[in-house]
């Protein structure tokens, strides 16, 4: 199966077309579900085809940088744009996560009443868009998919959302678009300098140009800042996060799940795939800014979450807080912290999907989201409570569940950055004191998370059963399936993180850190001055 990735990529789009052609609500839903399940199956096939011992993507020496299952065809030859897709240890877990979450979201969307055909078609187009972001290795193609994924989301929020859906949709769209424009500027600059969009070669080419003293050396930090601006909006990082609460609150439940689980990861993925490899020197110089943004997201997001009375808004802010760990992990540049950051992306994908679904169930029963008016649900809906407990505990980072692994690695990784041989300290980019302060503040963050999550669980589930809530039906089979599958993934990832994630990511992380530790040797790159590169795939 040579074109596995392209099949995976375009299958949902074909499914969308099939959905548009289908007759009748049932046909629509089953076609959509079938497509997502088929995509999931194919992504699992990728697990089998993946070579776990191959080194990761980046590096400078020839024959480094192994990307697997690559497919390359010329697309716009005049500008050196190829259709180039491939996977490595960074994108594979995210691809599988995408397929899994969309399957779960399809099940969660079963009860959509309004225009189901349009809904499911848009959902499937969205899946193609997101998969495209994770699979593409041509910068132009990456940008295209990055933008494409915005449209279905805009419509999905704007048509099927809550009372303020138009405001939330346009805010989401324009805010992230502003970021994309920043990325576009960087894209053009990169092309003008290197005449290539090939993300496999670009780190080496850019490093060569920087070493050769071209204008890029001065402009590099600016371009890095532009790229980070684009991705930090998506992550979302404080203070660029305010689109998220509104988008999440107004979006329908399955769309919130996809938004939290996947769209936010596009930002994190962009940091590790684009911003950091292309401009490692700038990244090292600006680490403190990124770290401060990360810690601010953790603490500020947690504090805002604590003050919310709307259940969904609270979960939205908790997403901001968790993704702060990703930003922090990226900034600290140690093996542990980057592995942790990637793991958090996967783990948060699962836990946030679960949390939003929990909110969705509660909202469905009560017709409101006001935490103060819930209460006693553990008595009314015990099975719901049991599964919800797994969600809450995974979200707050209890060992044995997925949230813990990422958090502990990021925290230990931040401390690890204080070693004399770390990238930050060893290269003289940081003072030990600042690393300690950052690590300390991040550690306090776990206390906040536990506080607001358990307090919320108490307000919603514990206490005497309320008379107005007595009528709530227990979760049915469909809802149990969604929650149970997410819960089992949370447990599996928490107990066997190496098998499920780290076996794929460790090599990529090492390769990425190699870029930071070894400045590009000028001699090896003399050939790289031309657009052809010595880089193999």
């Amino acid at each position, binding site marked *: 199966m040579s074109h596995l990735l392209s099949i995976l990529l375009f299958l949902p789009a074909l499914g969308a077309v099939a959905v548009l052609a289908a007759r009748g609500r049932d046909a629509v839903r089953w076609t959509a579900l079938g497509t997502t399940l088929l995509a999931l199956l194919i992504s699992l096939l990728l697990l089998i085809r993946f070579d776990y011992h191959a080194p990761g993507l980046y590096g400078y020496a020839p024959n480094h940088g192994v990307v697997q299952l690559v497919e390359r065809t010329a697309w716009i030859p005049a500008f050196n744009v190829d259709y180039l897709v491939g996977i490595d240890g960074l994108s594979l877990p995210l691809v599988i996560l995408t397929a899994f979450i969309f399957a779960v979201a399809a099940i969660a969307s079963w009860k959509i009443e309004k225009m189901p055909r349009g809904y499911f078609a848009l959902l499937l187009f969205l899946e193609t868009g997101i998969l495209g972001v994770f699979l593409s290795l041509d910068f132009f193609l990456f940008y295209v998919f990055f933008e494409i994924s915005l449209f279905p989301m805009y419509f999905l929020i704007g048509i099927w959302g809550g009372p303020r859906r138009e405001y939330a949709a346009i*805010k989401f769209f*324009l*805010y992230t678009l502003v970021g994309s424009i920043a990325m576009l500027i960087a894209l053009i600059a990169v092309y003008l300098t290197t005449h290539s969009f090939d993300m496999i070669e670009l780190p080496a080419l850019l490093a060569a140009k920087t070493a050769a003293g071209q204008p890029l050396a001065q402009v590099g930090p600016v371009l890095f800042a532009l790229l980070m601006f684009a991705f930090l909006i998506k992550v979302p990082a404080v203070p660029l996060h*305010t689109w998220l*609460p509104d988008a999440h609150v107004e979006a329908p439940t399955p769309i919130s799940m996809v938004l939290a689980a996947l769209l936010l990861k596009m930002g994190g993925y962009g940091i590790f795939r684009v911003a950091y490899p292309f401009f490692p020197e700038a990244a090292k110089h600006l680490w403190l800014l990124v770290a401060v943004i990360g810690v601010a997201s953790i603490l*500020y997001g947690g*504090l*805002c*979450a*604590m*003050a919310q009375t709307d259940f969904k808004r609270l979960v939205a802010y908790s997403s901001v807080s968790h993704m702060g760990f990703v930003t922090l992990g990226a900034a600290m540049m*140690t*093996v*542990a912290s980057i*592995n942790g950051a990637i793991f958090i992306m996967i783990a948060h994908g699962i836990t946030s999907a679960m949390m939003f679904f929990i909110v969705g169930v509660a909202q469905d029963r009560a017709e409101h989201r006001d935490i103060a008016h819930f209460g*006693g649900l*553990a*008595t009314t809906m015990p099975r719901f409570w049991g599964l919800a407990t797994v969600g809450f*505990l995974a979200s707050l980072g*209890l*060992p*044995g569940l997925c949230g*813990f*692994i990422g958090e*502990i*690695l990021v*925290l*230990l*990784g*931040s*401390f*690890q*950055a*204080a*070693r*004399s*041989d770390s990238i930050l300290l060893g290269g003289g980019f940081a003072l030990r004191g600042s690393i300690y302060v950052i*690590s*300390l503040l991040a*550690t306090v963050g*776990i*206390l*906040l998370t*536990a*506080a*607001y999550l*358990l*307090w919320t669980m*108490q307000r919603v*589930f*514990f*206490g*005497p059963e309320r008379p107005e809530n007595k009528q709530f039906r227990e979760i049915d089979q469909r809802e149990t399936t969604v929650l149970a599958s997410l819960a089992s993934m949370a447990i599996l990832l928490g107990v066997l*993180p*190496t098998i499920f994630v*780290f076996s794929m990511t*460790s090599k990529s*992380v*090492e390769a990425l*850190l190699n870029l930071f530790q070894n400045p590009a040797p000028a001699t090896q790159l003399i050939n790289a001055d031309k657009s052809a590169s010595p880089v193999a795939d």
Partner: protein
Amino acid sequence: MPSPALLLLAATLLPLAAFVLLLFLGKRIGNPLSGWLATLFIAASFVCSIAAMVAWFQADPGHYQGSEWGKGYGPIDITFRFLPVGVGSQPNGISQDHPGYLDLGLYIDSLTIAMFAMITLVATLVHIFSVGYMRQDARYHRFFAFLSLFSFSMLGLTLGGTLLHIFIFWELVGLCSYLLIGFWYDAPAAANAALKAFLVNRVGDVGFLIGLGILFYHMGNATLPDLWTYLGSAGSGQTVQLPGGIEFKTAWLTVMGIGLFFGAIGKSAQFPLQVWLPDAMEAPTPVSALIHAATMVAAGVYLVARIYPILTPSAKLFIAIVGLITLTLGALIATVQNDIKRLLAYSTISQLGYMMLALGIGSWVGGMFHLMTHAFFKSLLFLAAGSVIHAADHEQEMTQFGGLWRKIPMTAVTFGIAVLTIAGIPDFSAAASKSMILADAGAFATLAQQQGRSAAYALFFIVPTVVAYLTAFYMARCWMLTFWGKPRNQELYDGASESPILWGPLCVLAFLSMVSGRYLNVEPLLESSIRESAAVCHDMQAQDDFFKGREEFTGFRRVWPTDSSDDTAEPLADFVAAGEQMESKWGYWAFLIGGAAAALLYCRGYAFTRWLDRMPPARWIRHWLENGMYFDELYFAVIVGTTLGISRLCAWLDRRLIDGIVNRFAAAVRAAARLAGRTDRYVFDGAVNGLGALVQDLGAAVRVPQTGRVRVYVTILMFAVMLALAAAVIVALSHSPG
């Protein structure tokens, strides 16, 4: 006989199997069968632990010669690869098992064997008790599921061979505590207590993580023996040299030690994080007996015992002071409590303070010995209290008790045995452990005096001794008010009764409380543990060239307050003897004096209290103590209030300021768009339209003469011709000669 490692692993996993079984099939299995099933599993776990102990004693003579009891079965150290932290993080090559990874691990020595036996035994008895106690409960099977999960977590913690492993199970134990305290979750008090317990523990965990982080970045991946071997010289107060030229400065060692200890402060309810334990009494009483007396709260002490060799003298002093404050605080507050469970909770806090004090002053064996004996007599006290509460139809206030010895005699007798034990009656278990602590405290104080340190060091002996009297006093008071005298609530008294399933475990525990001091080999096992660990470290030192020329491992030796490294082998024998003398002089009769005082003062029930209340100072002190010295109120106002306030500020900021900027930006763009629209309409388009108007006007102006009336045209023509003729005449005349 299978290896102890396998047996202990089986012992750990059996309760987990029970949990999974009861989680999914509990409802179907029903009440009471699910309880008996859980009991079966934990009893099997106990059997495995005892089998492991037997195997431990019987093994062929092997590597380690140090122990008489653990003959030849040296400590077992196994690691499992877990989290990737990079090859580059370990240039010093500590712990070669899985380079580049943080490991989970098992470490089994005599201490582990002893802990397993104790935990599984107490757990089995509590399970049996719960079958009777929880019989009426609707969620009976869920209770046993959680109890099983807790047993698994606690045993997993005890097996832990790396600090990460311990931390993981540490949190799991906290989770089980949360679930069990909040078991009756429809009661807001229980839900609040559970939340409080978890969050206060998390505060401690923040410290734990900081300690872990500091340790991690110096040492990378390290099992417990690695820590002891490489950091064992921390106890002498000097900077530690690690392979690879890395220095671990004393200041950082102290911070790390205190950080790790902070986790223990949270878990073991030491000052200042003791506030969660009294509220945790909302849990069903068997839970209080198992978790909040015998095991979970002991986990903090266990952690300190395991990290003992890597603590600097400053860290140990800190621990000792915290222990000192805690034991006083707990005893003082317990003296005036009227809720029997709260009284026992504060008593637990006090006893845990004793254990921490012991570890801080260097009495490793004393502290752990007391942990073991305490497990037995405290769980006995709680279960007996449970029997009382059950008999009293869930009343917990001693003001309603009185004279119950006639109605529930077995409970009264076993409770009495426990009271005598905790008071320190000679030959019962607690006397042995407590006298060891006091003796060591005396030795510590004497040595400090010898070295010319501040006189305040004498407090380390005086205070625990005085509190020993107080302990005897308040426990005897408890017994008197509950069981003696006239019944204060006749209805309650009439309805009181006890059943064998409740007092059966009590008798077993009473027996254990009596004998575990001398006859269960606890002390030899503990001393053997020290020798085994030291042997492991010596072996590691022998194998690693790094240690050539460095001092031998002495980490478990009692380290007294020294600021020089001149503590040679055992100069302490004299001081130990002096300490024992002090203890036998001052502390031996504490049980009699304290107990008799309480018996006298409270033989008429609350009469004494009422007499005391007539004096305002006594009343104020009583209120202050009864409310736990108002710590809860202080913390709520300062910490919770502040945090909630800040969080509301942040949310407001987010909505008004940050989002306000975004919205205002959008509004500005919209205003600019309107401006552009108006500019377009009025200026540009206006210009275009204006031009058109101008052309039109011009045309209109030019069009004016075209009236279409012939007479006008003729008139104009006539005038034009006349003008032309005139012009011609004038021109002709001007050109004529003249």
